């Protein structure tokens, strides 16, 4: 099975092949001498690689995994080949735009742009209050504000769609 592991700074390809009951691990095409041993099924793991020992803390499910190693946490998104193909197709279909989701739970204080308006990359679209701080949510790229999904004053959960941006047809 091949997985695409995305983290800040880039994506790695990890291939796991079971051969004679042993798992062969390849990362970015190179075989890796890697042993992964779960201690308690609650997230404590000891891994070894090239004779070095690593105490890992591993949390998450199928597609989102967090690994903490020596105090640093790597937040990763995993896709297998089928998922990756599906996601790529979806992104292509959306063009430059798409929904903008709340990355944290909070309250939409106000919108700074109206539906139909053209916005520049980085332009503040709305103010989301979370943890008693007001945060401006900006356009990830240029486009037209196609829809507002949540009323001002409403509470949103992380992952809720806030607005939809329509990409400028630059192609």
């Amino acid at each position, binding site marked *: 099975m091949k*997985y695409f592991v995305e983290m800040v700074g880039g994506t790695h390809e990890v291939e796991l092949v079971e051969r004679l009951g042993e798992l062969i691990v390849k990362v970015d095409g190179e075989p890796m001498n890697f042993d992964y041993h*779960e201690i308690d099924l609650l997230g*404590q793991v000891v891994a070894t690689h090239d004779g070095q020992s690593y105490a890992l*803390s*591993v949390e998450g499910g199928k597609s989102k995994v967090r690994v903490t190693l020596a105090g*640093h946490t790597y937040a990763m998104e995993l896709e297998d080949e089928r998922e990756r193909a599906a996601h790529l197709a979806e992104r292509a279909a959306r063009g430059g735009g798409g929904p903008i989701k709340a990355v944290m739970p909070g309250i939409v204080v106000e919108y700074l742009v109206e539906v139909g308006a053209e916005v520049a990359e980085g332009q503040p679209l709305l103010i989301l209050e979370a943890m008693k701080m007001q945060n401006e949510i900006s356009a990830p790229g240029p486009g037209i504000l196609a829809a507002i999904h949540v009323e001002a004053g409403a509470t949103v959960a992380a992952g809720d769609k806030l607005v939809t941006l329509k990409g400028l047809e630059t192609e």
Partner: protein
Amino acid sequence: MFRRILIANRGEIALRVIRTAREMGIECVAVYSDVDNEALHVRMAHQAVALGGTTPAESYLDQAKILAAAKATGAEAIHPGYGFLSENAKFAQAVTDAGLAWIGPPPGAITVMGDKIESRRAMNKAGVPTVPGLEDPVDDVEQAIRDAEGIGYPIAIKAAAGGGGKGIRVVRKPDEMASAFRTASGEALSSFGDGRLYLERYLDHPRHIEIQVMFDGHGNGVHYFERECSIQRRHQKLVEEAPSSAIDEATRAAMGEVALQAGRAVGYVGAGTVEFLWEDGEFFFLEMNTRLQVEHPITEMITGVDLVREQLRVAAGEELGYGQDSLHIHGHSIEVRINAEDPINGYLPSVGTLHNLRAPGGPWVRLDTGMYRGMEVGLAYDPMLGKLIVWGRDRAQAIERMIRAIQEMNVGGVMTSLPAALTVLEHERFRSGNYDTHFLESLTLAPPTEYRQIVAAAAAMHRHLLARRRALEPQAGARAAWLERGRRVSSAVRRAADGGPA
């Protein structure tokens, strides 16, 4: 000494107070909101009173409920912790009026120090140096732009009722004033119910250095030296250390004396912190926090004094019983705050259910936290989950020890500020001791690249083993059904997941 006290707080600070009280043989009454019914402060208290509700306003901020709980349980005193009602003069007064002891300063001192403008006035009068600025709030943007000329840019816009750095905006040029004024005013109104703002000179590379003081009710006061809290972002502290590497013995003594002067000017009793901005050898009064502070443990580690014990003794009417001469700095201490936030992602708040907790241990490592397996981290309360504290013979040893302790630790279920603290501690600039309050915001945070392939392989293995376990379990639907039924039968019967978060 009190026989029984009520702790009007939650989380690590409620636990902190309970620990010392237990050591002193004092019984503890905890209060809790509906979401905190499993919290550690509830479990470790002798009695626990449900306040009901989920929001702070319905629970930890409800003065009537808390006073009723104190009466019902026969508590003789109330410790407010920090945050919530700790700097609420009216509540302090109500506690006293109810015939209970208030483990904090007199209401009058809270009132004066709680108002930026009033406190500036009082300090100027007492001869305590303050940052150049206005004593009166500004009415609108236009006035702000006019007045700023006289003070000189950069300008800090501050909420009159603010605290802990909340509601502060910096303006470097007149044309930034309008936008900053608007958001600051909005935040001040929504956070404190008071939109008044005032202006002051913004120091460009200041260090935040604060003095811990303690006064008894018999006219005696001491200070326990300084804490350096310059590692902060949006005025939220992340890493604190004591002593500061910026100041020498003479400055330390001078700041300590000024801090005592500040306290005396308002008739202070109990524990308090006088915050200063320090720049190029000069220091200015910033504000006084009229409560125990989050970062008090580093002072405890270098002085050997249990500050909560001193608070309780003083509130019970005891004399301090020692003078400044008996206090000495012993070694170096560092604290790191464990916030539920994602530093790599703009410090966005992070929510989830805590699991896979691993506490660091060994020599000179202290963990003050209310975290437990299964705890829900939401948005209702402060994102600070706890604090990691170390002591070392010198600053270099304390830094290395904290790095080691962070590397041993894990908090599963949420992202935390620990990686940001680790990056600070490993940075040449921090190690040199030559840093200011802008340092943290200037840092680029990213996990080390050398382990990318290892963690990627681990993530893939995790998914692989998870899929295999799931394939081996009885049909998922059936499993979910009996779990669901289990929940309905008894709310006490909770599930500890086999491999996922629990």
